């Protein structure tokens, strides 16, 4: 649930103009730049290989630790296997004492940040310096990283110049090349005189005892070349068995992380490599080399949990952040575990840092699924975040959310509430207190979006008046309307029926149907989701129909999930499975049943298309509707930029986080306008409500129509 503190942090992030501009720009251009860097590389097959080598190491983690230890020690290294972050930090602190270390230079190690080692060593009188430029800047600013790969992008060059001028002996103009030169001078002195270098590993190879570090700036190389003592700190998730396995990681990491085919430096250290011991005498010899393996209970918990074990496959590339519509707006400070940010950060925070913090920040996820598409290891990030959400709701059910959910799952209460809303239309649209009593996802009277009109007559009452003139029907389809078609977009529900009639199918409307349960599932309320599934399985009676059609992808997705709610072999499972298997989204079904035809009134209309997250990424439907539209006579089809980027609706999300939802919608509207289209076609009534509301509030005369409506209109079925 959104706490006041989190709300405040979100507000601060949104108010930071630099963050908005830099991060926004970065995230906008990221998908294209990333794709370019993958030219000639098969992302999917690398993803499979990467997953398999990572999973193999995770399954044999104890063997990996033992093998790495043996091989690293055989080459003169020292290995410390720590069972908690405290053990690890104590070991390093003692080491510094024993060796008389007074200064440490660090190249990025997120594991060492888990230990709070900079602070602890500082207490011992040891000066610890971050050497990555971004890390160095945020350390001067006293802040934590805003992004895993680009920690300082919330600051502009003027602010960086101020930080340098106030905190270093050099003066810099607010020009980036000069600032970089100043950083080089400042850090160079630190590299030359540091007693110890501390690094993080991207990969650790068990068979050879080798650790890898990837950098662009060369600070990793400095840290590994100059100081006489070198300490690596890394978690047990970094292991791989064979040296060749590492190639899958370094094929994905630079491309996903910084859209580069490779970074400037990839360095592999095996044991105690040589170092210059005395620069005056030119004496050289093996360095003091230590590998501190972090094997804390949080990491073991991830490994033990079959739902979360895949987190071990993460290579910390940050791609899930770069494509996240919410992250693009608020950045990493809001995710606030101070170390790990974004989608994967929410999960890592849950296990490694703070469960309480994770429970809050998981709310920021829209469940749009974009992160899963680009993940180097194919992690099911949205599903895992949902699991955390479910757990959180079970452990501390929030009263406000629960109220809305209980109402939605109680069909009579829900329907009567909607009818009251309908009768009190004037009040609702003017934003009076009435809206508080609507189900969360319908009470979205937020800034920059108009609220839709609730139908005066529900579709369930209209249905019996529709005449279905189908000669020699090919089959019978049951319609699952879902809340928005039943109570708001009743014309759309009618058009779905007319379209299906036109290709020879009769459509039925089982009256007992209730909310699909998606809002409950999205909020993590499995109890109510199951209750609704039971109601609908009973009501829809899938056994009597050839297909179930829905014109809302979120409903379709939910119907298709029903079988997972029940134990295999039970009667409910069998019935749920039949319903799941017969359920299709309108476009898919209409296309499948031969609906594609070169028909239409030929009147010119320019149409662009917005992909719903559920339809594209959960149901995998994105070609059929485009084909249907392109073949419609009169339609000139034009793609908009970021057509599969979330519109910001996300069910109850737009109500819980209007401050994030609104700017996401703003971007969508800009992209729509840029196409010069007359109509935005959509296949999701939620997206329709969101985008239509946004256009309407801005008085932009672009229409938003469901594909089913466009087909009915252009083919003269209405």
């Amino acid at each position: 649930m959104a706490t006041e503190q989190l709300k405040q942090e979100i507000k601060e992030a949104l108010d930071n103009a630099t963050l908005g501009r830099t991060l926004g720009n970065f995230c906008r251009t990221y998908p294209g730049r990333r794709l370019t860097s993958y030219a000639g590389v098969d992302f999917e097959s690398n993803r499979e290989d990467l997953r398999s080598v990572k999973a193999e190491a995770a399954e044999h983690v104890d063997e990996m630790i033992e093998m790495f230890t043996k091989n690293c020690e055989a080459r003169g290294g020292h290995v410390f296997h720590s069972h908690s972050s405290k053990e690890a930090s104590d070991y390093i602190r003692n080491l510094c004492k024993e060796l008389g270390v007074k200064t440490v230079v660090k190249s990025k190690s997120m594991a060492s940040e888990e230990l709070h080692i900079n602070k602890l060593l500082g207490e011992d009188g040891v000066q610890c310096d971050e050497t990555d430029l971004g890390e160095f800047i945020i350390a001067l600013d006293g802040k934590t990283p805003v992004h895993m790969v680009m920690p300082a992008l919330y600051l502009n060059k003027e602010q960086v110049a101020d930080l340098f001028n106030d905190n270093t002996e050099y003066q810099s103009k607010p020009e980036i090349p000069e600032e970089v030169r100043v950083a080089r001078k400042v850090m160079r002195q630190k590299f030359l005189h540091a007693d110890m270098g501390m690094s993080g590993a991207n990969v650790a190879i068990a068979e050879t005892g080798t650790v890898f570090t990837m950098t662009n700036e060369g600070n990793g190389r400095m840290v590994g070349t100059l100081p006489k003592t070198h300490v690596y700190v890394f978690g047990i998730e970094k292991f791989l068995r064979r040296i060749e396995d590492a190639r899958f990681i370094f094929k994905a990491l630079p491309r996903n992380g910084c859209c580069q085919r490779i970074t400037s430096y990839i360095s592999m250290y095996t044991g105690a490599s040589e170092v210059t011991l005395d620069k005056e005498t030119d004496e050289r010899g093996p360095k003091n080399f230590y590998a501190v393996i972090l094997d804390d209970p949080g990491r073991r918990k991830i490994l033990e949990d079959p739902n979360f074990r895949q987190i071990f496959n993460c290579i910390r590339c940050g791609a899930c952040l770069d494509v996240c519509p919410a992250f693009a707006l608020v950045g990493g400070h809001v995710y606030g575990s101070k170390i790990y940010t974004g989608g994967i950060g929410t999960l890592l925070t849950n296990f490694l840092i703070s469960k309480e913090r994770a429970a809050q920040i998981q709310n920021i996820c829209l469940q749009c699924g974009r992160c899963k598409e680009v993940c180097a290891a194919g992690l099911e990030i949205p599903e895992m975040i949902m699991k955390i959400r479910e757990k959180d709701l079970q452990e501390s059910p929030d009263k406000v959310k629960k109220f809305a959910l209980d109402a939605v799952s109680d069909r009579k209460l829900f329907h009567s509430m909607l009818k009251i809303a309908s009768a009190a239309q004037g009040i609702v649209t003017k934003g009076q207190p009435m809206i508080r009593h609507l189900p969360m996802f319908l009470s979205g009277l937020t800034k920059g979006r108009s609220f839709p009109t609730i139908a005066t007559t529900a579709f369930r009452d209209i249905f019996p008046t529709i005449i279905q003139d189908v000669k020699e029907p090919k089959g019978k389809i049951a319609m699952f309307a879902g809340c928005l078609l039943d109570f708001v977009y009743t014309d759309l529900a009618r058009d779905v029926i007319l379209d299906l009639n036109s290709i020879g199918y009769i459509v039925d409307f089982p009256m007992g149907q209730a909310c699909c349960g998606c809002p409950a599932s999205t909020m993590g309320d499995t109890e109510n989701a199951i209750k609704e599934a039971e109601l609908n399985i009973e009501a829809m009676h899938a056994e009597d129909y050839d297909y179930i059609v829905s014109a809302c992808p979120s409903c379709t997705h939910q119907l298709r999930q029903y079988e997972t709610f029940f134990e295999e072999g039970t009667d409910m499972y069998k019935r749920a499975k039949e319903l799941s298997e017969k359920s299709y989204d309108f476009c898919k079904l209409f296309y499948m049943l031969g609906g594609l035809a070169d028909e239409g009134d030929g009147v010119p209309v320019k149409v662009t298309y917005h992909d719903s997250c559920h339809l594209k990424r959960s149901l995998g439907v994105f070609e059929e509707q485009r084909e249907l539209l392109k073949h419609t006579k009169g339609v000139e089809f034009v793609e908009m930029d970021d057509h599969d980027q979330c519109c910001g609706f996300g069910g109850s999300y737009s109500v819980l986080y209007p401050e994030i939802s609104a700017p996401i919608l703003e971007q969508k509207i800009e992209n729509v306008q840029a196409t010069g289209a007359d109509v935005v076609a959509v296949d999701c009534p939620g997206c329709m409500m969101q985008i239509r509301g946004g256009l309407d509030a801005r008085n932009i005369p672009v229409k938003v129509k469901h594909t089913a409506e466009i087909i009915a209109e252009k083919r003269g079925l209405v």
Partner: protein
Amino acid sequence: MSNITDELYERFKSNLEGAGGSCVRTSKADLGKTVAGLFKEYGADSACLCETPLIKEAGVCAAMQDAGIETHTDHIRKYGETAIGGCSQTAFGIAELGTLVQADTDVRAREVAIMPDYYIGIVKGSTIIPTYDEMFFEIGKWKEMPAFVGFITGPSRTADIECVATIGVHGPLKLTAVVVDDE
């Protein structure tokens, strides 16, 4: 080992240029002159040189000194703090990425490659491997990992301020690969 083909050389060169580096091709006989010329062009009046049999045979050190460059072949850690140039031989190249691959136990090879402003990496044409994957297969075949293996692709870089790509942070500001034709 057979010498590098023109096609492979061009691939290596264009990929290195894509990563912000530069590349020249020369014979062993002209190696000294080439390296000295590059340093002069950059304005490097002092440099550290990590010698290998090839570098010695080609007389690189003498050629640099003849060109008036203050050249250090020992005490590299010390002189590396102020030298403008650095030069060493790397074990391999990867054409697909324009990458130089170091495989050294000698720390001096690493010091000259990271400390000075301008680094020149000498690589034999016959040791340039076509692809990234093949390089990893090659490493996998080694009986023992060298204490240090490093891939270097272009000069050091950052995008940490306002996401603006900027060349030259802690490592070299400029990098040139000199590909030597095998005799």
